């Protein structure tokens, strides 16, 4: 069962290590983690998504509260949170497969309203913030269109309650073309592209 932990912490060096170390030491899993400064620069906000049974979830909350650098912990069910995933997809092509790749990607771009950026002659980038369900749909489509393999995922959530937190978010999917017959595939986490 997934649970989202919105953790306000002191904005000082070593705090991320202390919090993530807690998860490691007590064998709690982190599905995703996003950290960023809040409007008060003495305080940072961490959004941690973890999976576990009721006992684990209770322990995560209690152990987080026990940390002296942790100011406040709020927990949410997935349904209680607004969840968005920012996808960043790098697509590489060669002279031979350029046409196929661009055609395929144009379909995706059109359906999903991706922003498209071209910084180099042999690749371009898609950027899109999506609801998680759409991300899943996108991956399904991409799998069919581009014979996709494995997609690295990380979720990012904006939590409600009238407070907007800023996030630094890094995620990428690397798509490379293989041959004109096999226009592209997802490589297995080959280098994240930083946004």
């Amino acid at each position: 069962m997934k649970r989202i932990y919105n953790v306000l912490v002191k904005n000082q060096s070593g705090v991320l290590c202390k919090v993530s170390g807690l998860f490691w030491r007590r064998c709690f899993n982190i599905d995703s983690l996003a950290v960023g400064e809040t409007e008060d620069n003495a305080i940072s906000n961490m959004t941690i998504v973890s999976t576990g049974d009721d006992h684990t979830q209770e322990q995560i909350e209690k152990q987080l509260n026990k940390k002296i650098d942790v100011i406040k912990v709020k927990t949410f069910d997935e349904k209680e949170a607004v969840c968005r995933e920012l996808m960043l997809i790098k697509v590489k092509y060669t002279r031979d497969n350029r046409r196929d790749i661009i055609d395929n990607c144009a379909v995706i771009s059109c359906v999903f309203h991706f922003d498209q950026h071209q910084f180099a002659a042999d690749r371009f980038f898609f950027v899109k913030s999506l609801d998680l369900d759409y991300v899943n749909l996108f991956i399904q489509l991409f799998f069919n269109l581009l014979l996709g393999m494995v997609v690295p995922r990380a979720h990012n959530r904006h939590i409600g309650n009238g407070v907007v937190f800023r996030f630094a978010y890094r995620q990428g999917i690397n798509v490379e073309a293989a041959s004109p017959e096999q226009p592209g595939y997802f490589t297995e986490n080959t280098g994240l592209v930083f946004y």
Partner: protein
Amino acid sequence: MNGADAIVKCLELENVEYVFGYPGVAICPFYNSILNAANIKTVLVRHEQHAGHAASGYARLTGKVGVVAVTSGPGATNVITGIATAYADSIPLVVITGQVDSRLMGSDVFQEADISGACESFVKYSYIVRNAEDIPRIVKEAFYIASTGRKGPVLIDFPIDIQNQKVNKFEYPDSVSMPSYKPTVKGNTKQIDKVVRELKKAKRPLICTGGGAHLSGAANVIRAFAEKHRIPVVSTMMGLGTMPTEHPMFFGMVGNNGQAYGNRAMNQADMILMAGARVADRSIARPDEISMNKILVHIDVDPAEIGKNAGPTIPLVGDLKNVFTELDKEDIRPATQEWLDCLAGYRKEAEEAKKAKADLVITPGTVDPTHFIHALSDAMDKNAVYVADVGQNQLWSCANCIIREGRFFTTGGMGCMGYSVPAAMGAKLAEPDRQVVAVCGDGAFQMCMMELGTMRQYNVPVKIAVIRNNVLGLVRQYQHFTYKDRFSVIDLTGSPELEAIAAAYGMKFLYLNDEAKMDETIKAFLENDESVLLQCDVDPNEVA
């Protein structure tokens, strides 16, 4: 005034009496400044780990914060076991480690270790001092964090350039302002009412005390509560001493190394007040099942402990002293006479079985360790401090040591071999007029025997009884049962002659290998306030 002067000044203001440690270049400014502190005595241990243990012994007896100061790199990494032991046993320590120049931190220079990173799992909190002006606040907070809530070690990593940095304004704060750290001391009134309601109805209530009973200074309160309301008490290993061993309402230690009658009491109780105990694996074999047929009230100052190992019926966060004082205000007095008689019957059965064992033949040239510990603790001063090490000696001690008005120390949480001698040394320094006896095996003794030098240097007359069987007894016992006598790496052949060791450190030496001479040897062991090393030979086949 520089940073080192400032930190020493802070220690003086915190009324620190002893600093246990080992200097090195990176902590030299601190050790230079401490020469000016008239009221702080320094103790040079022979290994940094033992500085942690000695401070632990000191802290446990005084209730104050133990202070350790060691150098960077290996000095700091050596002290980790001492810190981890204090963390597992919830002992308040402030550990100051020297660090390389802050501008060189992270560049892997000589004797640099990321000690705050390395200790993250073992400290309640850690600081790296980045600016000497922050020292008063940091030290004030460190002592506050270490000694409040669930107690534990706090690390202050102190780069050498910050120790030498000039402090323009020194102002020691009167109070601490930490919005993110506010331990709950007072028990929730509604929860207390619930406990009272259930206690009144209970037919077989039981209090199980853990180390928290001593840490919160609640032992006397719990004892008075149990006596007034006629509720029997058992203890975990860390809680031993909450009730005198011979108290009619005390029914021994629980757990897989505890007394059978204590465990029977736990099984048959219809309501258990788990007080300052973690419900850990050694005390409660199946923590998840403990509340199946009973009402489990878990009282602890650390909310994270409640529900961690066993789901309580009534959780109650608060300091034990406070909670039991509140409970005591109510007229509870459940009808427990039948239950007490039943438990007394179990205890009597067990004592008779023990007497039957006493008639068994003892291997010539050895003594029965249970007889020895019983006789030794019986002959000790009423308020003596008994420090047990780890291993078979610890289990024999827990089961047979008679505690009256004294204290029983052991590391029940971390189980760190070599704890007894340095911890006993710390306790003796804390209260020089009190009799302090360390009991250890020959394995553990060899992990800490270098501290005989410290004892001699500072004239700390601790009495040390080494239960010798030339093997790592508890591991041997485990291999005997689990691996059917396939013994592996437990032989201590090559150990030194203890008589020669005693002579080398100018200590009196006694040897016991005959039950007939037990009483006179123990008398000679305890008679004067001097350091004595007693070798007590036991059969390696003895099981605990």
